């Protein structure tokens, strides 16, 4: 019993950590940069820009450019003064 409780604790702990790290970003999907060095980005209403990565980014590029979408995933890097941030998309929906 003690063992099961321990396992449950570990599973719940890591699960909560995982979910805690998921973020939501809402903004417009765009392609920026000059060829051949383009990026798919999401630009939020407050001007933050993240490069969108992950498998679903292909669909977003093909179908959602210039649309406003809500992305759920992981912020890999926050934008800094000189470059875009990075966001790994896991789910998306129209807001």
């Amino acid at each position: 019993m003690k063992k099961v409780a321990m396992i449950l604790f570990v599973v719940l702990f890591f699960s909560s950590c995982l979910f805690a790290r998921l973020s939501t970003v809402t903004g417009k999907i765009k392609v920026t940069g000059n060829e051949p060095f383009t990026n798919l980005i999401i630009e939020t209403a407050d001007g933050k820009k993240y490069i969108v990565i992950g498998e679903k980014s292909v669909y977003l590029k093909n179908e959602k450019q210039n649309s406003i979408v809500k992305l759920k995933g992981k912020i890999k890097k926050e934008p800094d003064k000189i470059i875009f941030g990075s966001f790994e998309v896991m789910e998306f929906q129209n807001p």
Partner: protein
Amino acid sequence: MKRIYSFPFYVISVLFLLSCSGSSSSGIVSQKNEVLDFFLRQWGAAVVLSDSTAAPEPLKYNNGESAETYTINGINYNLGPINLYNYKYDKTTTVYYGPYFYSSLMSSSLESSPVNNFSDDDIALSSIPGKKEITEENERNMLLNLTRRNFPEYYYKSTANSDLQPNTVDTYSFYDYNGNTITAFFVAAGTVSSGGRTITVNVYADKNWYAAANAPESCTAILQKFIGSGNKDSIYEWVSNIFGAEWGSSPYSEHISDAKTISILMFDIDGDGYNGTNGVFTVGYFYSRDNFKKTYYSFSNEKIMFSIDLPYMLKTASSETWSPSSSYPNKIYGTLAHEFQHMIHYYQKSVVNGSYSSTWLNEMCSVCTEDFIADKLGIEGPRGIMNVNSSGSQYISSGRLPLFNSMNDDSLTTWGGNLADYSVVFGFGSYLSRNFGGPGLFRKIVNTSKNDFDAIKESVPSYSAITEDYSSTWNISGADEVRYIGASSVTITPITGGNTLYFIVSNTDSSSSKKITIQGGSLSKSGTVAAGSNTYFKTEKITNSETFYFTLESGVVVTAVAR
């Protein structure tokens, strides 16, 4: 002939792509500003038309138009008239300016023999100056709250020379965009002064490819094209005169300092030799990674530089002997101008103005740069016509416009990196330049912190009036979803006095005829459109709000034009 386009009338066009049943209701949301895109598409998307009940009329061509000259800081830029050749229908339609084109469009004739006659040379000509699969970070966006700096007043006095003997002993290491090492010789150099700024231009060549036939001549030729002879005759002078300096001080310590030097690296981009990758070449590129210090990007070359595909420049077309002015070198010169705009665009838009550009806007500026200086370079440019004073022959099969013409449902602002995207942005850009101020307009578009259509709206004084007129005088159902409505009907509310509505029906299927029905108001049309052909219907004096309904077979595209 001066043409300041003032929009004497309003044209609103709506494109419907309808499903087989004609009853698809899944609208694809587009952006409001694509209204202008659509305006342009109407003028640019030159389908060949015929009233299905009338005898075909002969096509009309632009025989009397001459180049339009714009002067910026003492340098003249000529923009010639544009012809469009439609591969689908094997016809050319002349784009005049705005409404004139429209009347030309309406008097064009039916053609039902679609062709697709891309030759190897045409494919090469249309090679993408870049490679879309690469998605590394390039647009190092300078986020907001930067201090805008004043632009210098450009006055252009050029002095150039090329006095360096090639050094084929010492070698220099570069990184390509994949981080591969390129070992190169330092083979040519010169200086050019422009706008009070003197820069040195260094040319490097891959040490192995430099031994290839005509490689030394190629390196000298590209230098000469870039720096000229000191008499306002260089890519550097022409392009920087339009857009501004390519580099200077930066508020970011991550950037390299301004050494007032541009490097051109000639090597085998992609390692695909004379044949390209499946026939497609990366002809050249500018990569802003090189503007950064190695401490920030370890693969940075720490140079303000271009990369040019040397094997491509060494190619020869059939029955042609290579020379610095043969066809492939000429394409390289256009590419060099194209990439130079990217170089300037990065500095002016991102560093100076602390903004960024969507790819369609950035590429539009580059392909229009080719257009602006094609006559100076003595190349065809994206119009596909050598003589700037001519709109060309009936069958123009090169340049960007044929593909634009046959892809009139391709979005302007959705960028996929394919050849059609380049054609579409050129269609739009050539319209802007010929109606709203030529190269000077593009200078404004680049030298602003605004992006996308905001940059155009800010740069074109009458742009907002156009959109306001659109929104206030017309009401098309789903006005914010003008493009790809995907619905089976459209409702038109006319302005006072009534208007005329045209429905242009194109059967894009080259092998079978298609049935269509359009009904609404006094219009009731039902019949068959021949394979690969077009027709149009007109209904006049619309004084009340009316809804028109469509039933179209798959492959049929309808463009509605209200005026």
